[in-house]
Structures are given as structure tokens and as C-alpha cells.
């Protein structure tokens, strides 16, 4: 009787541990899921653009934000580009350190509308690494990307005429406690 009860309780305890583990495991799983499906406008990474599809164009607008905790000025050189779907495009952003200290920042990013996340592919981006600026320093930062022509076959995304690529720069703690 006792051992039978104990066995049931232990099995239930294993269930509790598994679900608790699943709760924590969901952090990397969720990141992988977003990367794979473009959920929440998560962009993709690629090596080479597949080449422009004739006559299919889309406007990509650039949006820039800076966390109030980071004394930088950050803006795109052009507000938007009209590009061929499938064609490679390069856009530049400039960042300037307005403070009297050396500051390191990193950019988070996504695209809207969210359903184009899985078609928006970056080949190279300043957001892949951290950026460190000396006091008063100004840099030009490129992003190279293309929009996957598969977007034309997706009924959810087919009528998208404009994609907004958004960046937000956050400070990286000098102590490097994060990540």
C-alpha cells in the first residue's frame, strides 16, 4: 500500500519536474521557433540574394529608435528604399555617440507586418554584433538584405506594399552581465 502510493506520488513528481523543465526549456525553444517561423517579425539570415523578380517591387521603410539609457543619435540615411523583390539592397544607418564616455550598444530588430518576418532575409547587418563608439564618434553602418520571392505566394503577405524594418539600440552593460 505504502509503496504503491509512493510510486504514484513519485510518478506525479516526475510529471511536475518535466513540466517545470519544459517551462525553462521554452526559452531556447521559443527563440528557435521564432527564428524558424518568423513569428513576431523575426527576420531570417541568408548568404546570397536569389535575384530580382521582374516587375515586383516593395517599399522597405527604415525605423530607428534609441533606448533612453543610451546617449546616442541613431538614424537611417534614407527613410525608405523601393526595391525589387528578391533583389539585394544595402541601406546605411548612422550612429553618433553624444556623451563624453565610450559606450557600447546592441540593436534589437524586427519587421512589420509580422507575417513578412520569414521572408525578410539579412545577409549582413550591424545588428549581428555590438557597436562601440568613442565620445563624439560617428559611424556609418550597413545592412544588406533581400525579400524572399516566396512572399509572392503567401496569401497572408501577398498584398504587403510596405515593410518596416525597425531597430532599437540598447546599451550593453560594461560589466557584460547580460548574455
Amino acid at each position, binding site marked *: *500500500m505504502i509503496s*504503491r*502510493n509512493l510510486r*504514484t*506520488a513519485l510518478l*506525479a*513528481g516526475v*510529471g*511536475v*519536474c*518535466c*513540466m*517545470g*523543465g*519544459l*517551462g*525553462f526549456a*521554452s*526559452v531556447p525553444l*521559443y*527563440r528557435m521557433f*521564432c527564428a524558424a517561423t518568423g513569428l*513576431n*517579425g523575426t527576420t531570417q539570415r541568408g548568404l546570397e540574394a536569389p535575384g530580382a523578380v521582374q516587375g515586383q517591387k516593395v517599399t522597405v521603410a527604415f525605423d530607428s529608435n534609441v*533606448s533612453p539609457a543610451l546617449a546616442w543619435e541613431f538614424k537611417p540615411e534614407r527613410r525608405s528604399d523601393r526595391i525589387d523583390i528578391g533583389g539585394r539592397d544595402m541601406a546605411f544607418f548612422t550612429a553618433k555617440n553624444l556623451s563624453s564616455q565610450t559606450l557600447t550598444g*546592441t540593436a*534589437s530588430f524586427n519587421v*512589420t507586418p*509580422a*507575417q513578412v518576418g520569414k521572408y525578410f532575409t539579412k545577409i549582413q547587418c550591424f545588428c549581428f554584433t555590438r557597436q562601440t563608439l568613442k565620445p563624439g564618434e560617428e559611424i556609418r553602418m550597413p545592412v544588406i538584405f533581400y525579400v524572399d520571392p516566396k512572399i509572392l505566394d503567401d496569401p*497572408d503577405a501577398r498584398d504587403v506594399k510596405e515593410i518596416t524594418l525597425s531597430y*532599437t539600440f*540598447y*546599451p550593453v*552593460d560594461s560589466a557584460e*552581465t*547580460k*548574455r
Partner: protein
Amino acid sequence: MTDIALDHGAAHDDHAHHDADHKPGFFVRWFMSTNHKDIGTLYLIFAIIAGIIGGGISGMMRLELAHPGLQYLGAWYEFLHGPGKFDDATEFWNVLITAHGLIMVFFMVMPAMIGGFGNWFVPIMIGAPDMAFPRMNNISFWLLIPSFSLLLASPFFGGAGTGWTVYAPLSTSGSHGPAVDMAILSLHLAGASSILGAINFITTIFNMRAPGMTLHKMPLFVWSILVTAFLLLLALPVLAAAITMLLTDRNFHTAFYDASGGGDPILYQHLFWFFGHPEVYIMILPGFGMVSQIVATFSRKPVFGYLGMAYAMVAIGVVGFIVWAHHMFTTGMSVQVKMYFTAATMVIAVPTGVKIFSWIATMWGGSMSFKTPMVWALGFIFMFTVGGVTGVVLANGGVDDFMQDTYYVVAHFHYVLSLGAVFSLFAGFYYWFPKMTGRMYNELLGQLHFWIFFIGVNVLFFPMHFLGAQGMPRRMPDYPDAQAYWNLIASWGYAIMGVGMVFFFVNIFWSMFKGEKAGDNPWGEGATTLEWTLSSPPPYHQFDTLPVIEDSHHH
């Protein structure tokens, strides 16, 4: 449901003579209790106290919302913390709604349903002498005390104004001070308490049924507690993980939910609602079970479609785990994801419909008597159906884009919880009051309680549908003048409900000491479950000789 016939000469006749009814002294009995009935009583007392506090807070909210503009918030804030700015007063509103939600969910409904009635009647209904792990049962209850204390103390340390959902980033970078940490720790403790309780119930129900009590002969209330225990077991650890990460984000510079460190606040919402949706079924399933017992008893018929009823609850539990994102329709989902969650959510209406149908079919052709427990159960069925219908409306992703976070949602979940779960709690309380105390409640006071409460809550919550459709957002202490009319009516509804509650308290105190003595079975032949074969109140230790459940005739 199957009739249960005791073997001849079984359990209950001569318990008064021997040691089975020997009770320990006051301190040992109530503070170190390992007796499932005493622990159940403690849970019920705890839930009533928490309900008074949580209900009092909602009274403060309805008082503030009775008229446009801020009337009382500033004074309440000043009473607690000294003079403050306008923002402090409105933040205090957030503290009130958070406290109301957390108290009612974790410290009123769950302790009453699972800890209270579950502890009291699950062992008796399956013919077991006690729970499988009586000491663990004691820990489950006493974990709630520090948990509730932490939550009640948090307003004195700034207050947790995060909503019961504790969404990041409001709960991480948006709230400073120890109050939110205290609320999170309070949730941890309450969760641990419920997980231990769930393990206990599962073990008891699987291993300690009396001879002949197969799973398919168990009373539906036991089935409901079994399904609830599994939901608790699978859902609460996910909440524990989610809020542990909240704590580390707040205190140890992690960035699970912080976009600047590569995290995502939406992840918290997914984790919370993966727990949160099963949680709403945790709160209502034991109510389903109680209502099934009561409707069968007062119709003098076995429940219609017993197996369908039992497996409808299983189905609700299973599907409850795969619909969570319908709470997050406005977080930016693709149309397909919305379609899936809309469809999956509506599917739940099918087993729920099976239950409503079966309750009505149980009454159909039955010899019904409208005693207080029965009118509460009927009130439950009506209210829950209204709340279910608005739930189907809200399940539509497109409609929800408009309805999200409006008073329509508030009306919906109060119809299923405040009117559904609470009505079933009152039904169960009146139904088992004679069994628990040995005395009958006063029928007139019980009926008055029901009718005044019924009118009050409908006047209180029905106008919220209109307010929500007009776009009044929830969690706001103020509203435009155009919405003053229905808000005032809702506040009067609260007052009517409060009058009803007076009859409840008068009734229980009067009946506890002066009530007519109840026999073993005050409800007659309709009450077929094992608790009615015992004396009222039952002996301190029941079933020294295990009852044998005969394979009775089929219906």
C-alpha cells in the same frame, strides 16, 4: 451515475462506541492536523476569510467606479502611505485590481473547491479512510498562510500593481521595490501548495478506492477533482518556471523577457497563459462535479450520461492546454494562428454543451425539489451558459481585436467565475453543510441569500457587457461621462449582492449553533454517494471497515 450500495453491516453503525471518534486537543487538532476533514474545514474557513477580503476590495473598486472622476483613490492611498501624487493614487488602483484577482483565484476559489470540498469529500466518496499523504495535506494548507500573508503585506511595501497576469515588462523593469517580489513569491508558495495537493489527490483516487469502486463508478465530483489535479500538476510548474524567470529578470540582471538583452516579453505571455487557461478550468471543473451531484440528488435521478459527463471533463482538461493564445490575439499573430486558436477554443463549447445538456436531461422527468443547494446549482447552469456564450463570442480572433481588455471580457469571466464558480461553491456549501456540521441550514435564509445574490450579481455584471461593447477598457479607475449610467447601475448591483451576503453569514452562524439536527441523509433517496451513509458530522475516522461497493443494477 451508479448507485452505491453498502455491504450489510458496514461502516457506519457503531462508530460512537469505539476509539474512532477520539479527537486530539485543540492545538494538535487544528494546527498539526492530518485529518482530511479538519484540513478541509481549515481550507473552507481560509477561503471564506480570503473571500471577504477579496470581495471587500471589489467593493472599494465599485465605489470608485460608481461615478466618473476619481473620488476615493487618493484618500485610500493617503491612508496607507501618506500624501501622494495623482499618479500614486492611480497606481493604487492597479494594486487593488491585482489584489482582487489574485485573492479570488488563488486564495478563495481554489482553496474552497479543491482544498475544502475536495479534501472533505473525495476520500469519503471513494470509501477511503483518509488522504494518501495526510502530513503532506497539512503542508499544503499551511503553505497557503505565508503565501497569503506575503500578498496581503505587499501593499505596505509599495504595492504590486501588475494585474493578476504579472506581465513583463511592467512586472520587471516597470515595477520597483519589494512588493512585486513578494507577490511573485506568494504565487510560488501557493503553487507549491497546490502541486502537493494535486499529487495527494491523484494518489488517493488511484490507489485508495474501496473494493468495487472502479474508476467508472466514482461519483462525478471525484472525477472532477481527479481531472483538476492533473491540470494543476501539468500547468502550475510552467507558471513556477515563468515567474522564477521574472524574479531573476528583476533581481539578477537576466534578460529572459527583456528585449534589450535578447529576450522577449511575449514569451512571458505564452508561458503565463499556458498555465492560465488550464487554471480557469481548474477553477470551474470541481464546480461542474458538485453541480452534477446536486442536480442528481434533487432530481432523485442518477445523472444522465454518466460516462459522457466524466469524459467531457477529461476532454475539457485536454483541450484546455492547447488554446492558450486566445488570450493573446492582439500580440501580432498571423491569420492562420488566429484561426487555429479560434477554432480550438470553440471546440471546448462541445464538451461543455454535453455537460449542460446532461444536467438538463438529468432534471427532465425527475422528481425535483427546489431546496437551496438546487436553486444555486440551477443558477450556476444559467449563469455559466451566459458566460459560455460570451466566451464563444470572444473566442473569435477578429472580434477579440475589438473586445480585448474591455469590460466585455470582464463581464465574460465574471459570469463564468464569479457567477459560475461561486454559485457552485454556494451550492456545494449548502448541500454539504448538514453533513459537515450535523445541523441543517435555514431554508428561508438560504433562499433569500440566493435570490438577492442572483439579482445583485446580474445587475452588477450584465451592464459590463454594454460598457465593454462601448469600449470601456478594463483596469482603469475612470471613464468618460457617457459610460456613467451603466457604471452606477453596476455599483448598485454590488450593494444588492452585499445584502445577499449578509443572509449567508447570518445563516451559517445561526445554523451552526441553533440549526435543526440533520440526520445521516437529509436529502432522501436522491443522495446516493457514500458520504450520506455516514453520520452527520461523520466520525473523526471513517471506514474502519472498508465499504464494499456492489455491482448494482443498471439504469
